[in-house]
């Protein structure tokens, strides 16, 4: 029963994190300039590299989300989830510590619908981080199609 529960829990986390990452990527892919501005507002990326990040990051989020849900390269996708969430937590924390009041740019990059960064944003990312660790350190690799044996 416990084993069954663990397998279900991991699959549930894969679905949750996967859907969140896919949802988070859509608005950024369709509005790259606004997302680049949102990244720039954090004042954490040097040399004007926020534009390159704005080109790549949404696609990485989309790929990672699809991989988690589809059961393809789940280990790699979980590692990238962990890396991205650590980066997000660091970026938000340094902005809050410096007293910068900016929009998160997490799910929507529009100034009309975007939410401002705050403690709840960090807690939300910590929750995703924990789920990503659970996925990475799962015991059984059920409902996964590639690679079959690692």
């Amino acid at each position, binding site marked *: 029963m416990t084993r069954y529960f663990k397998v279900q829990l991991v699959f549930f986390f894969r679905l949750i994190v996967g859907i969140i990452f896919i949802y988070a990527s859509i608005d950024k892919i369709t509005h790259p300039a606004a997302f*680049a501005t949102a990244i720039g507002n954090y004042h954490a990326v040097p040399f004007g590299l926020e*534009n*390159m990040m704005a080109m790549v990051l949404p696609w990485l989020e989309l790929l990672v989300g699809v991989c988690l849900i589809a059961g393809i390269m789940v280990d790699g996708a979980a590692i990238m989830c962990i890396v991205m969430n650590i980066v997000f937590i660091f970026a938000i924390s340094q902005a809050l510590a410096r007293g910068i*009041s900016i929009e998160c740019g997490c799910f929507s990059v529009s*100034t009309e619908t975007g939410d401002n960064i705050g403690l709840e944003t960090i807690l939300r990312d910590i929750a995703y981080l924990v789920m990503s660790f659970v996925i990475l350190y799962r015991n059984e690799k059920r409902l996964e199609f590639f690679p079959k044996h690692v």
Partner: protein
Amino acid sequence: MDIRTPIGQAVFLVSFSCIIGFGSNLVKADAIPWIATELEIADSITPETESTDPVLLAISLNQAKNLFDDGILFVDARDDDYYTAGHIQGALKNAFLMELIFSIEAIQEKNMPLVVYCGDPGCGDSEDLAYDLQDSGFNKLYVFKGGWLEWSKAEYPSEMDE
């Protein structure tokens, strides 16, 4: 790179994202430059209303004060609470974008100059809003980067929301 190992998979995902991201930017109609550029700082400002050339420039405190003295409209890009606590005299509140656009259009034409500001030089809301307003057809936009911090320090005309 062995795609069967976790690290190999992560490297593959990043590489594939770079290819799609950079590749799609090459063919997109709304492509962005590879490297971001800072908003150009205005040397001198002549907010004449006859010209239809688009303007989006950053301005200093002195330039902002000169525009204020000329009666140019200011828009506060900060949240309600900050606006209520204190803002540049006569500045419009940043409501929903369409509401703000209607408010501005009730006062002046879209080709008239407009100054947008937020909290301090570190905040990006003024630049965000300026780009949104530019997309909505306003073509003479000045971003006062120093924002409320510099304005209130200089003790220039300000007011609290009633």
